[in-house]
């Protein structure tokens, strides 16, 4: 629990920066900072006060090869067109999956429809980036839905499909917003289950035909971005 009393809150911000909070409390502070500008300012002020102490640690050459490791970890995902086929599954599982998948697909198709909503809202947008941080899709929130425009269309293997997901802040798992029809450069989705909000993560993953069989992303993340208010909005 983050205390309400300003003196106690400031003390907790100080201990967060000092590093003496436990894992749970530290996580609480990090989450609260996203929505609490005053707490964020308190943490930043403590970082400014205590930060210079970092100079007390003696610089040390990292082990050789570390940059190469980092570069490999940053490496682009395999080319979309060259993705290996999914591993064969046991027949029984496969049948169950196929049945479930068509039901999922039917539900997903229904979501890919513009749903008009009257209330105006702050304009939210993001650009989904590839793993190399290249812009791939422009996403704009509009009347409770999302409008997507492809900036740099890439082919998808015949047996795969792109699936759109949203992860509201604080949610444990992303919600599927539907499949992106092959070759479609502009789509509008009107998710019933979630509303676009600042900080919401939007991602597109590569999934088997019919969409993820599990209801969670299973394939590689192709594109990702976080909704934020458009400047000047």
């Amino acid at each position, binding site marked *: 629990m983050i205390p309400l009393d300003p003196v106690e809150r400031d003390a907790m911000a100080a201990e967060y920066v000092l*590093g003496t909070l436990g*894992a749970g409390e530290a996580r609480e502070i990090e989450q609260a900072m996203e929505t609490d500008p005053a707490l964020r300012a308190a943490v930043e002020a403590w970082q400014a006060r205590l930060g210079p102490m970092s100079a007390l640690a003696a610089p040390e050459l*990292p082990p050789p090869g570390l940059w190469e490791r980092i570069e490999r970890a940053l490496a682009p995902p395999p080319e979309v067109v060259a993705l290996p086929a999914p591993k064969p599954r046991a027949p029984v599982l496969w049948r169950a999956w196929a049945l479930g998948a068509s039901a999922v697909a039917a539900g997903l198709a229904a979501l890919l429809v513009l749903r008009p909503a009257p209330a105006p809202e702050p304009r939210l947008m993001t650009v989904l980036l590839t793993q190399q941080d290249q812009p791939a899709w422009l996403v704009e929130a509009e009347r409770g839905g999302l409008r997507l425009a492809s900036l740099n269309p890439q082919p998808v293997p015949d047996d795969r499909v792109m699936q759109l997901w949203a992860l509201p802040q604080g949610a444990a798992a992303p919600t599927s917003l539907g499949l992106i029809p092959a070759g479609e450069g502009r789509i509008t989705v009107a998710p019933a289950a979630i509303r676009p909000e600042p900080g919401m993560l939007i991602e597109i993953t590569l999934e088997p035909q019919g969409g993820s069989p599990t209801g969670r992303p299973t394939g590689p993340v192709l594109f990702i971005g976080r909704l934020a208010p458009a400047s000047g909005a």
Partner: protein
Amino acid sequence: MGHLALDPGRGGMAFSAAPMTAALDLPDLLGLVAAGDRSALRSLYERQSSRLFGIANAILRDRDVAADAVQEVFLRVARRAGQFDRGRGSAEAWLAGITRHAALDILRARGRELPTDDPALGDEAVSPEAEARLIATAEGRRLRDCLAALEPKNRFGIILAFVHGLSHPQIAERLGTPLGTTKSWIRRGLLALKECLS
């Protein structure tokens, strides 16, 4: 970023690396990293990895684990460089903050099981060389003066926590003081620092 017409992030990065980024300051490099420029990230690594590895290893006291932490730091920097705001502090401080939190995350995930009975633990952080690094900046000089005004045990407790990632119980054990006393000393020390630095 207007003056940096460097065509960030597109082909030929391996060639553009050193010569083109050599004249850039760290905030410029972070701007390029935010635009996806891998060579700028490499320049950042070349300039900052020793300092950041030192910060991580002071907390983790294990070079292999500290290397993991620094790897995580540069992955985070690649993702979050766009969040750096030069109006809110130096790039050095921003990078050090990311490094400390990456190292502390690892430490917490392991239940802070690192031994703290090394009698020399913390000595390096109060050596004349360390003090010389601290007072190399104006903020560091002010902090040094304010730290010097604290009770020695308060000061050492705060340094053990900040520089070496020690928890309250570990600091209490190290200083041979009861846990409750240690906690309130550190808290009072932090308040005194805030007062002194304001």
